[in-house]
């Protein structure tokens, strides 16, 4: 009894604290993710409040957080949106992948962490935060802007890239060699194509399995199906995250829309726990040595994402100011960078410093992204005026 009481108090304090942090973050127009990470760092080794006795719950809750994050990522776009997105924006998508994965990979190699860590860090710096970006676009009233479909199509491409990237990463982290890795590439491309075809042709059957007019039944079936698929995927040495993601893609139409509406609050809860646990497992004393590299990555990948947006918008005939807005909007990194780093650190196949580097990097990018999106217009105006002033 005593134990349960302590656990409830601790858990309550954590959630309440996160609630206050989240409120604070949205007040100042930022994503709460960096504050959750900081919260985790504070609770962790030598932190303010050492948490004992709730680890079994928080560990499991953070796993569920990852499953829900990926399930909702899969639900976000319908299979047809993914396919048209792939067809229409693959050039911009490739530019995005090359420009933004390279800095992460190079820094990991520079640090002598090896090829697997290079692949991990490439993923961390590549993937933008669709959560933060969608929020920024809505908050700043930019949904109707002409660069917005360009920004969204880049995100759609990243979404698909994750479907190929995650299985490969999981295989490499499990210690499969290069040849085995290539085999996994083949299998994952095959599986994702199969899931897409399945979702396009028979999406309504997959949806019918989980769908129900009764919200309670629907929620239970949905969550049950997600955890079952994730668990089975984990058993088969494919990561749980990948399974949940593919299930998300396979569920389509109105079922998908209802599912994401219903699961969003649940995801926010468990994902918050996931960020805190990631922060908890990061040793704060490991941050100072990797700080210069984190800053280097911040500068490099802010530039490369900005370029990606600029180029993608230019290809659609959008003017300079719109290109600048597209570039700035894409800068934010967040939840999925942490998911990738979490998978890697959890497997033990990469150095522990990678967690410290990823935490620092995401802390900075999740703050810089929204700020950049906000200030890009005044800054661009000033630059234009200065250039014009210098000319006259």
């Amino acid at each position, binding site marked *: 009894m005593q134990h349960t009481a302590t656990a409830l108090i601790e858990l309550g304090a954590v959630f309440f604290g996160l609630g206050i942090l989240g409120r604070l973050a949205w007040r100042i127009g930022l994503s709460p993710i960096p504050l959750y990470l900081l919260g985790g760092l504070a609770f962790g080794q030598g932190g303010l409040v050492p948490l004992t006795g709730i680890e079994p719950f928080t560990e499991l809750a953070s796993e569920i957080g990852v499953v829900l994050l990926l399930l909702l990522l899969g639900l*976000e*776009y319908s299979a047809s*949106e993914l396919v*048209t*997105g792939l067809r*229409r*924006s693959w050039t911009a998508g490739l530019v995005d992948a090359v420009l933004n994965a390279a800095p992460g990979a190079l820094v990991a190699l520079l640090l002598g962490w090896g090829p697997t860590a290079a692949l991990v860090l490439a993923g961390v710096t590549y993937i933008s935060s*669709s959560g933060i970006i*969608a929020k920024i676009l809505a908050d700043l*009233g*930019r*949904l*109707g*802007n*002409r*660069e*917005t*479909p*360009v920004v*969204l*199509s880049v*995100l*759609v491409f990243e979404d698909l890239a994750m479907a190929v990237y995650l299985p490969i990463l999981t295989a490499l982290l499990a210690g499969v060699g290069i040849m085995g890795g290539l085999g996994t590439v083949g299998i994952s491309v095959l599986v994702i194509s199969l899931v897409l075809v399945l979702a396009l042709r028979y999406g309504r059957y997959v949806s019918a399995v989980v769908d129900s007019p009764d919200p309670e039944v629907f929620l239970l079936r949905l969550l049950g199906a997600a955890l079952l698929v994730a668990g089975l995927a984990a058993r088969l040495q494919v990561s749980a995250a990948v399974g949940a993601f593919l299930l998300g893609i396979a569920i389509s139409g109105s079922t998908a*829309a209802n599912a994401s*509406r219903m699961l969003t609050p649940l995801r926010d809860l468990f994902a918050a726990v996931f960020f805190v646990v990631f922060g908890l497992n990061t040793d704060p004393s490991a941050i100072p040595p990797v700080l210069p590299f984190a800053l280097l990555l911040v500068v490099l990948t802010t530039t490369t994402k900005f370029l990606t947006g600029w180029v993608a918008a230019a290809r*659609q005939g*959008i*003017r300079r*100011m*719109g290109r600048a*807005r597209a570039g700035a909007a894409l800068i934010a990194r967040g939840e999925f960078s942490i998911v990738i780093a979490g998978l890697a650190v959890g497997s033990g196949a990469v150095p522990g410093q990678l967690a410290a580097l990823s935490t620092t990097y995401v802390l900075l990018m999740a703050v810089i992204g929204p700020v950049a999106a906000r200030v890009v217009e005044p800054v661009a105006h000033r630059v234009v005026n200065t250039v014009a002033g210098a000319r006259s």
Partner: protein
Amino acid sequence: MERKSPKIEGVDVTVTPLPGLGTQQEFTTGSGRRIGVITHRDGRIELIVSDAQDPDKICAATELTGEETSTLANLLGAPQLVGKLTEQQREVTGVTTWQLPLVPGSPYDGRTLGETEMRTRTSVSIVAVIRNGSVHPSPRPDFVFAGEDLVVMVGTTEGLRAASEILENG
């Protein structure tokens, strides 16, 4: 970007999917500004107008409820209706369309269309009534007038003058 351009009333409407969010439908006005509607996945509707300086950017966006969208559509559509009627009747010599307000406190405020005996007294036809922005076409004799209704009538100038007198003073 997939953009389909169906023509509505001779104007090219561009349909752009917003993956994960919804669909955007818009057209460019003669003055070069984009006007459109974003339909969110959850059914919310947003009206957007582009900036005069930067056509890529929107300067106004406002969310509308279902009732508000139909009110707006009717506000914009009502003058069109009168315009079209006038256009059609131009061929017929001596016949015009008038749009007259029924002032609150008029003898017919709260009474039926039939009671005005408009057709018998002035040979004017009441073809539509616009109330709160929505059009009630071909109102029947049992249609009950209310203050601030706009009554759309077709007839001779003389007849319409008489009709206006009737609506005002009985």
